[in-house]
């Protein structure tokens, strides 16, 4: 019963935030809606005993990622009028057709299967995503640690490589200069420090 109340409340918050992301004219409001959705999902993670994932969700997503989004939104400019008209003539109808198709397919899945195919037979054991459990699943290396070797160890190491590549790529993009300087006068000031504003 408690879970039903939490599901209804946080589900409403998540849906409202998601609709806000899509419908908001001002991207700042969209970012706020996205943050509401992320917090609601963090509550769902706690309900699902995934405590560590919930904490990481709040810190990384609702904290860092949203801050980064807001930073770029402010940099790009929030006060410029955005026209919601579509310039490609076929974009809107094709998009609506695709969306309706996916809605029908997902609805058919929900109605006919009721997601029974994801539930295993028998009572599953309750898992709690504590830090110890997550950490041992991530980097336990074998018998000396008292557990079998983790199957997530190689993906974990690949993730570190991915993060390094992403950081180097972001820095390289920040130093990239367009070669043509003759069009659109007045942007000679696009130096490395131009993000700090006038």
């Amino acid at each position: 019963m408690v879970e039903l109340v939490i599901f209804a409340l946080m589900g409403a918050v998540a849906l409202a935030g998601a609709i806000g992301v899509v419908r908001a004219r001002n991207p700042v409001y969209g970012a706020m809606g996205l943050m509401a959705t992320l917090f609601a999902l963090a509550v769902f993670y706690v309900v699902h005993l995934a405590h560590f994932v919930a904490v990481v969700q709040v810190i990384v997503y609702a904290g860092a990622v949203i801050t980064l989004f807001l930073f770029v939104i402010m940099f790009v400019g929030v006060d410029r009028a955005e026209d919601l008209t579509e310039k490609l003539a076929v974009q809107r109808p094709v998009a609506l057709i695709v969306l309706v198709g996916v809605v029908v397919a997902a609805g058919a899945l929900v109605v006919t299967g009721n997601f029974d195919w994801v539930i295993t037979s028998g009572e599953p054991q309750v898992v709690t995503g504590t830090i110890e459990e997550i950490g041992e699943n991530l980097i336990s290396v074998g018998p000396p640690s008292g557990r079998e070797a983790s199957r997530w160890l190689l993906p974990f190491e690949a993730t570190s490589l991915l993060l390094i590549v992403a950081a180097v790529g972001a820095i390289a993009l920040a130093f990239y200069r367009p070669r043509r300087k003759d069009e659109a006068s007045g942007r000679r000031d696009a130096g490395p420090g131009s993000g700090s504003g006038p």
Partner: protein
Amino acid sequence: MIVTAGWYMTLAAVLFLIGAGGLLLRNNALVMFMSVELMLNAVNLTFVAAARAHGDIGGQMAVLFVLVVAAAEVAVGLAIIVSIFRSRRTASVDELSELSG
């Protein structure tokens, strides 16, 4: 009334569809990017719900990896958006037609 994993997965499907709609219908690159984040989070909710339904912690591990990949994606994607904005003075993807013949 028992809230089963199917409820959460239905909610995740709705969130995913809203994100897909934003990705297809908006033309601001930042809003499209936020819609992608919405879709990723919908899938994360599915993973966590399945982890509890199966009693397997693998779903939560997958969510952690999705989080890391999404963080890397945000860093690179926002750098690309800022780079485009510096050279084109726009964040609308409709304006980016340099490759069209």
